[in-house]
Structures are given as C-alpha cells and as structure tokens.
C-alpha cells in the first residue's frame, strides 16, 4: 500500500543547522556539518504574555512550522496539522516533578497548562489563528515516521494539505540520564495532495522490512541517532540532492518506512 503526496515546504532547525537551506547545503555535501548548539528564535507570532510562558520546545516547533508554511505559501490559519514529539517540554516536566517531590507541592498553574503534550500545537493555533484539526502524536524513537504516516494518510484520505511538525528537546538532569536527548532538533514539512508551484518533490511511502539508511559521516549519523525527529535525515538528504531516489526510514522494531522521492522539475 503506497501513500503519495507532494512536499511543498520544509523547515529544519537543530544543532549547527538554522534553517532548511543550511541543512540542504550540508546534506548535499556542499558544506561540511559543523555541530553547534541550536539557536532558537523567539516566535514573533505570539503576544508578549504568551512569549513569556513558552519553553524551548515550543520555540523550536513554531520556528520550523513557520519556515515550512512560508515556503509553501500556505496560510497557517487554514492548514490542518500533525505535531509529533517524543517528549514535549522536558524542562517544564522536570520543574513539575521536582515541585511535587517537595513538601508543600506548590506547582505553577502555567507550568501545569504547558505540561500537556499538545502545548506546541496549542500555541501554534493561538499564534496563527489556525482552527483546522490538529493531531499530536508520540511514538518514542519512531515519532517522526509515525507523524509522517499520520500526515500522509490525512493528505491521501481527506485530500487536504497538512503541516507535519516533528520536534524534540532535551530533559535536564536527572531525567537526562534516562533519556539523553542532547539539544533540540525539529523538521517541518507541508504535504499537499496535488503538485504546487513551490513543490520540491513527490513522495511515495510504504512500510518496509529493509534495513534503515544510515550516514557514513559520523557527525551526521550521531545527529540522526540523537533525536527521534532526526530520523527524518535520510529523507531530507534525498530532498537536498534533488536527484530522486529511495530512503529507508527507521520506524518501529518490526518495520521501517520506504520513501521514494521524485523531484519536481
């Protein structure tokens, strides 16, 4: 069973990669990959009161979602969305667990409201006025591929454009020792049922038993393994190369996702 859609906008932000053009230059071999701490912009779409409340993971998700939708020329207010993250806001989670372990157990109501896994999707909806359906997923290390499958089925079945936002951020200690995500990394894409003027490529996806693709470059392979959202990198490499081809993406223990890319001329 093959699912098909067009990639019509991309956003990337992670260690040493501040946007899709930079990521594309690295993944196509034009520039070497130089790891450096991810730099997260303050989202301009939120009012001052909301900006004060948000953590790193929300800044990450909004930055890549804005990059992808502006490339696609899509009005975010009309766009259905799929957010997928392995862990949400790790710092916020730590602060709540810490407060609950102390006498008094005084916790901040804002922290509690922000602890929902769909916080980034909520702020995206508030900031852009998006009233369409929005789903928020988690599949641990398979979160990117699970999000891609959800977005593709929505494009194929409902014939609507869908914004996919996959993003992960670090936990502070002591949770960091149990879930060692080192920084933030995210990838966003606008998937459309028809080819558009800004479409990069057509993507055809199907479940597979083949081994997943890896990188020969040790820094890029380390990046792929460090963040669930970075399991998208073999797909992004194909999109950057603009020559077409096939990538096998990591998914669950029993299956992978094969994605075939055909660039739009």
């Amino acid at each position: 069973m093959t699912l098909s859609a067009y990639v019509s906008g991309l956003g990337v932000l992670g260690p040493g990669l501040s946007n899709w053009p930079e990521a594309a230059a690295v993944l196509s071999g034009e520039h070497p990959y130089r790891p450096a701490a991810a730099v997260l912009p303050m989202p301009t779409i939120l009012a001052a009161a909301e900006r004060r409340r948000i953590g790193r993971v929300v800044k990450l998700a909004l930055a890549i979602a804005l990059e992808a939708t502006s490339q696609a020329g899509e009005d975010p207010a009309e766009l259905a969305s799929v957010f997928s993250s392995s862990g949400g806001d790790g710092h916020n989670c730590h602060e709540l667990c810490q407060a609950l372990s102390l006498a008094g157990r005084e916790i901040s109501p804002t922290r509690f409201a922000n602890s929902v896994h769909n916080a980034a999707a909520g702020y995206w909806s508030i900031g852009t006025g998006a009233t369409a359906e929005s789903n928020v997923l988690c599949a641990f290390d398979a979160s990117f591929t699970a999000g891609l499958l959800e977005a593709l089925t929505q494009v194929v079945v409902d014939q609507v454009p869908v914004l996919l936002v996959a993003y992960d951020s670090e936990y502070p200690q002591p949770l960091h020792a149990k879930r060692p995500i080192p920084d933030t990394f995210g990838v966003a894409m606008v998937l459309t049922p028809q080819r558009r003027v800004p479409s990069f490529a057509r993507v055809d996806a199907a479940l597979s038993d083949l081994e997943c693709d890896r990188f020969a470059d040790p820094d890029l392979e380390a990046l792929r393994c460090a963040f669930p959202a970075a399991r998208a990198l073999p797909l992004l490499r194909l999109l950057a190369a603009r020559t077409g081809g096939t990538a096998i993406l990591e998914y669950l223990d029993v299956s992978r996702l094969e994605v075939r890319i055909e660039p739009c001329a």
Partner: protein
Amino acid sequence: MRPLLFKNFTATSCIGKGVAATLASLLEQRSGLKNCEFETVDIETHIGEVPGVDDARLPDHLYKFECRNNRLAELALQEDGFFDAVQQAAERWGRRRVGVFLGTSTAGILQTELAYRERDPVSGALPPSFEYGSTHNSFSVADYLRRRCRLEGPAVAVSCACASSAKVFGSARRMIEAGLIDAALVGGVDSLCLTTLYGFHSLQLSSPTPCRPFDVARDGISIGEAAAFVLLERVPADLDGDSVLLLGIGESSDAYHMSAPHPEGLGARRAMQAALAAAALEPGDIDYINLHGTGTPSNDRSESQAVTSIFGPTTPCSSTKGATGHTLGAAGALEAVISALAVQNGLMPGGVHTNKIDPTLTAHYIRDNRRAPVARVLSNSFGFGGTNCSLILGRAG
C-alpha cells in the same frame, strides 16, 4: 466518511470493570466518585479511582512496563473477551494489518513522580530501576498493548490532553481508509497521578465535592481514571442490526487560550458541525448528546452555547462525568463506549450529582435516565490547547 464497525469494546472505570458492570451503574445512576485518599495526596477533592489497579499483573517479559497506567490497561484488556477478540482479528487479518492507536495524557508519569522522591541524595540521580521509555513516555501504553497483543501494524499514542482518546478514532479511520490496516485497537488509558491532581487544583479547576456538571453551583472537575478499548473494523456486508457503527468524526482547534475554552464555544461548534457533515446527518438526526460536561463553570457555559446553537434547546444531553469523574486522556474512549451502550440499550443516562440545573444554560440537560430508542449519539471531547473532537455513533439497523 465511510462508517466503521465497533466490532468489540470494553471499558473499566470507577463505575465498573467491563461493560456489564458499567451499564448496571448507569442504569442505577450510581457514581463511583469518593473522597480522595490516593497515594499521599493531601488536597480536598473527589476522585474516580479504579479498585485493584495495582494488583494487576503484567506478563514477566514486559516487566519494564510496570506502572499504574499499564496495569490499568492490562486490567481492562481482560474484560469482555477483548484480548481474545484482538487475537482473533490478528489471526484473521494478519498481525501487520492491525494497528494500535491509544490516547493518553498522563501515561505513567506517576512512576517519575515517585522516582523523584527516591533521588540519590548526593548525585541527584533517579533510581537505577526507573524506566523512562516504557512508563513515563506518552507512547508507553500504546507500546505495551502492541507487545502484549503481539500486533505489528502501525502504532502511535495520541496525546491531545482531554481530547486524546476521541482523536484516536480519526487516526485509525484514516489508516483503515488508506488501506494500510484492516483493523485497529483504539482506545484511551489515563491513570491517577500527582501532576493532574495538584495541577488542576493549582488552576482552581477541581471541585472539593463530587463534580456537578451543568449545576448552578458547579465548581470544577473530579479527576478519574479509566481504560477503554474499541476494536474498529470496516463494516462487513452481513451486519447485525444491533451492531454499533462509528458514523462521523469532527475535529477543530479553538485558536483562543491554552487552558480556557472559547467563551462562545466556537471550536466546539465547529467540531460538532464537522462530525455531522462527515456522517451526512442533520442535527435532528441526533437522539442524545454525551457532553464533555466537565463541571467547570467555563466549560459547561461554552459547551451549552455551542450545543444550543446547532441542536436548539430540545435534544436531550448529559454528562456522565458526575458518575465516572473526568478521566482526561481516557475520557473520549470511555464516553464512546458509554455512547455505544446508550445505542445498544436504548438508554440516555441522566447526569449524576447535578441538583439544580443552571437556568442560564440553554441545552436540554437531563438528570434522570430515559429509556427510549437511541439511533444516534454525539459525544464531545475537548482539551487544553483548544483541541476539540466530536464523535457520532449509531445503530447499524
């Protein structure tokens, strides 16, 4: 949308383990809420606790999944022959052709809350026995169930706060319709923990008394826990008229506030209208509405406005949260099962604990059970972040 069949379903909450006990409680208008004595919690509130959760045994090879949330999932899986029904589906369709779509908001966060009390006094480290991925992580309950049931299809957790386990039906529907799978284990599991009990208390959204949805004196929610599962398949040619079908799903976002609903219920209205459109039904086709009805002043006010704007003031509606409590990430699936029981048994369950209906709420809230044919039910679930989902269920014949 093409209707889907509720092939099997089960629910375990504070009003009963399995559908027979759940139905009996609904018929008797019995509430499962009681004064909170959970763990070391010291706030004045009522909760819907499932008895015996921590006695449930996970299989030895899945010991890493040990936490209250997965124990509750295991407890519920054993009711109504649900585990066996999933095995039959896996044998019929193939293990790769059955997906797992589980809604949760808490997952096993209680395990982390407890581990934070056991941190090493010098290093601050969590105890070595603490497992993050199979307990705390939102995917843990979906991962537990796919391993427990040996399913190899696509699997995911949906975590959209209190709409989570309504929205799983949308994810499963799209995968079935796209042809990736033939059956789906769909549901929700949410369990008591300190984060939600103290969190809703910090927002002044939990009531010191059992919650009273739509009451003039309503003052907040009662938190509950539940696990509810549905085996979803395409509608076969030879269909029993008593079967329950999923006829429509509608989703929307408020674009308004993180923890407060839109004051006029615009997002709720859009979700209900989208569900009606997906089912190709008119408002008059709905016999009963199972409300989100949390019992907070703001939710009930905005939901009542949204309901009345579409259905007018005569369609009977009620919230079953006075009986079960608000089971958060499990509420959508629990109330889908209650809606299926309403359809099968011709029962509109009256809202428990509501003494005097708020006269400013114009929706037709019922406090007493009604026995009448129920051809179609609409069930609402809304969550923090302004996420909304409405389901429409109906009789096959």
